[in-house]
């Protein structure tokens, strides 16, 4: 039963991810005085891409075709282990937070290889920048994760959420810092403004789009979908780790409804906050990234230190 629920939940997660992306885009358009596309536009885009005939460059090797699958599968897997509406899932035991970071790294590894596969300068540039961002973001992310893991004495996500729920609403300085660090990392890792601009194809400003420039058709659809899953995943992580209230602790229908409602509500709020920040800030130069991510790391370290100094009795 629990296994079935977790499979259902993963499927729901994967199915809802384009909707979240559509919501973010919708809010952003409103904020920028543009007429918003319909909320279901990402689904239409995906459907169109799946139908289109893909073009693959003749210099491509099998890595180029395999990479979208790896990226998509790692995204689904990550969606499977992060508690979405239910706190206790058997899948959370299979892999903890560190494995989650490892899975993101695996997907990135293949995507950057695919960027280099055709031998075009765009792809190489995107891969190189993506790797720089990853190298700087990963320690910040793990540091934030460690703050949580040391407070809850576990790296298992379900257990960590349990711990937060049990200790109740306490203002912990370490969590505030870790939340800040993790948010900045999430912005960098999902390629949003001010680090990357998902809506542009200008060579000087793009990172992720440069890497996947040669993809088309269903391969592009897989990558886009995986990106949408990843964006929602960071949203769910932030919502469920730092504000888990409402998440279903049992499989009773009422709990489930509350859990689902609360996570959708939290995501909707995050989906308003993200476009606001994207509208307020301009994209940074590439070599300002280190300051941005260095700040994320600093926040995470402060979180860790305040945990060690203030919170351990």
């Amino acid at each position: 039963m629990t296994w079935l629920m977790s499979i259902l939940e993963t499927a729901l997660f994967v199915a809802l991810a384009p909707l979240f992306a559509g919501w973010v885009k919708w809010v952003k358009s409103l904020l920028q005085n543009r007429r918003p596309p319909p909320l279901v536009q990402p689904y239409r885009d995906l459907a169109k891409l799946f139908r289109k005939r893909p073009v693959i460059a003749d210099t491509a090797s099998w890595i180029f075709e395999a990479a979208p699958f790896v990226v998509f599968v790692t995204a689904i897997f990550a969606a499977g282990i992060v508690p979405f509406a239910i706190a206790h899932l058997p899948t959370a035991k299979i892999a903890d937070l560190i494995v989650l970071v490892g899975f993101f790294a695996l997907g990135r590894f293949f995507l950057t290889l695919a960027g280099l596969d055709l031998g075009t300068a765009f792809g190489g540039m995107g891969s190189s920048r993506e790797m720089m961002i990853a190298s700087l973001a990963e320690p910040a992310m793990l540091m934030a994760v460690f703050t949580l893991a040391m407070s809850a004495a576990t790296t298992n996500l379900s257990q960590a959420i349990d711990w937060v729920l049990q200790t109740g609403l306490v203002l912990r300085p370490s969590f505030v810092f870790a939340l800040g660090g993790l948010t900045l990392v999430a912005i960098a890792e999902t390629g949003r403004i001010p680090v990357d601009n998902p809506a542009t194809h200008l060579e000087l400003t793009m990172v992720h789009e440069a890497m996947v420039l040669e993809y088309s058709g269903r391969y592009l659809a897989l990558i886009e979908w995986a990106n949408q899953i990843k964006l929602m995943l960071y949203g769910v992580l932030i919502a469920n780790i730092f504000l888990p209230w409402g998440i279903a602790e049992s499989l009773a229908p009422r709990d489930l409804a509350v859990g689902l409602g609360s996570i959708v509500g939290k995501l909707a709020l995050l989906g308003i906050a993200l476009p606001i920040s994207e509208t307020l800030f301009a994209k940074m130069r590439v070599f300002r990234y280190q300051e941005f991510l260095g700040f994320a790391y600093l926040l995470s370290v402060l979180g860790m230190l305040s945990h060690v100094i203030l919170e351990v009795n």
Partner: protein
Amino acid sequence: MLALAYAALVAALLSAAIPLVLIDTEQSRGLVLRCLARWPPPSWQATTAQLDGQRFQSAIEYAAFGLLGCSGLAGLVAGLATLLADHTQVDQLPLGLPWLDWHLRLDPLAGFFLTLIGLGVVAVSLYGPGYVRSFRQSGHSFATLGFCTGMFVAGMELVVLADDAFLFMIAWELMSVASYVLVAFQHEHAPNRRASFLYLLMAVVGAIALILAYGVVAAFAHGFTFDALRAAPLSTTWASIAFGLALIGFGMKAGLVPLHAWLPEAHPVAPSHISALMSGVMLKVAVYGFVRFVFDLLGSIQWQWGAMTLVLGTASAALGALYAFQQNNLKRLLAYSSIENIGIVFMGLGLSMIFFAKGHAELAAIGLVAALYHVANHAVFKTLLFLQAGTILHQTHESNLERLGGLIKRLPRTSFIMLVGCIAISGLPPLNGFVSEWLTFQTALQVSALDSGILRSFIPVAAALLAFTGAVTAAAFVKAYGIGFLGVPRSRHAAHAREPFHTGMFAGPALLAVLCVLLGIFPGKVIAALGPISRALLGTDLASAYANGWLWLTPVSSRVASYSAPAVLLACAIAAWVSYRLLRAPKLAPVRDQPRWDCGFGGLDPRMQYTSSAFSQPLRRVFHPLYEIREQATREPRGHPLVTPAALDLDLRIGDRSWRHGYLPLAHSVEAAARQIGRIQTGNIRTYIAYSFFTLIALLAMVSS
């Protein structure tokens, strides 16, 4: 089992002896022909007739590598059986000093490292015959190569079997000197001579530190056997001095920053199968020495030692990864990445020492197991990667990434094996590199058990640096693979490369690639096998890690952290299969092959690809204080400054900071001191007699008083 280990030693020595007949090929071939002529079966006669010079040399090479393989296999079986049976055997051989026999001992710790040596040697001996053939044309003698390889392997096997300080040092020096000759094998190139001299120099300094370390302990003990050393009643001060010396000695061999300068010079210039043995196996022998000396012989571990080891390990891991990322030579990149991996091992050991000193033996066991697991993993994937780098060098005569590219289409099998190695070394799930890094993270997260605030805040920072290391390593191997194997060929050699003919050149690396997967999927089994070692050294094992069955890895308890590699693999396989089937359905539109997007300008050529140094430029810019960068662009103008120049030349050199700020000042001060001391050497015999006279008087005065 010790008998099997002896067999391994004898086989290694025999494999060293056989190539010696090639010193005079013609004479020895005649001798063999005469012997074979006496042999009755007629089938041999036919063989004899065909035995010309080339075939004779081939036969010798196969015999030497065959015996080396037997040695490896015997070591592997002996070590594995000892480890699994948790069984200790001691013996004495009437060799060595008149009053000190050779003491040998095969216990689980030695067995584990003997297994790794055996594994590396088996893979290398499968690979070797195909690889060394290319040296025939270049006129390098197989006699030297084969002899030193055999002695090198015998030396490493003897180090782990040694049970007294004297034999340990003899075997250690045998290993160092044999590997020195191997590094200097292609000595016609000046950089190789320089690298091998640096290696020899640092090996000697390291050996002096080790002799002093043993000397300090032996001064308190009654004898040189390890049993006597274990029983030595050392004060904390003397134990710390011995620890410091051992850290210098073993750290120098293992390539810990800042004692690493020889490693990136020496490993790349040796023949590739030797680089594989040096990086994959010899560094592990140094780790063995450290574990044996500190955990077993010294005992009473202090937490300061652990903190020191942790700091050095973290520095090695982070700097090794950053330097590896900037290398354009594939073998040099691999050598720097060895420094990084050794750093991760020492981080695990340091954490283990801290926890053990603070009385948390069960947490110390996680650290030790993480370190040993990483030792095994690194032995597997680094040997694989060096062998594949050797294949590339053998097939393209290039190891500069800037001149490779597109190899995945020319060498599909080699490239696939290489990809497995790259994923494994980047610490990505579900392969083996991830498991040991995960365990190291888990050890670091148990820091709340410590009562010291400094350690509690320092260890998570070290863990975050480990995360940084992992990401940079992944970047380095994306670069190595993406530039070297993907894209379009950047040189004629790369464009015309072909798969090697020799099957052994696949078999050895393929064996290791399978092990990468197995070690990643069944961590519980590996940790169970490592149990006897941590029981012997720390008094406790990691039974909780596999208490929930082979499917789960739960180092502390299932509440704290769990990881199930088989389930991860299964889930990924199902998801990949489903999405692949859905997307490969026949009713979908077929794929269209078109040229790459060239922005409408046309004529993309291989030089327009992203280069290796361009790929690593962003991190070079971010971390420029850590590198010694000299960049010089010269342009040959074509009259007007706005016209495209006739030629552009970029000279980029990226060096190691430690060289200028650590080694050169040291070398200069040694030279200056030598000059000062040299003043007493006047060349005048009367002065020398006066020196002797006054020395004699001084000695007499000392004796009489």
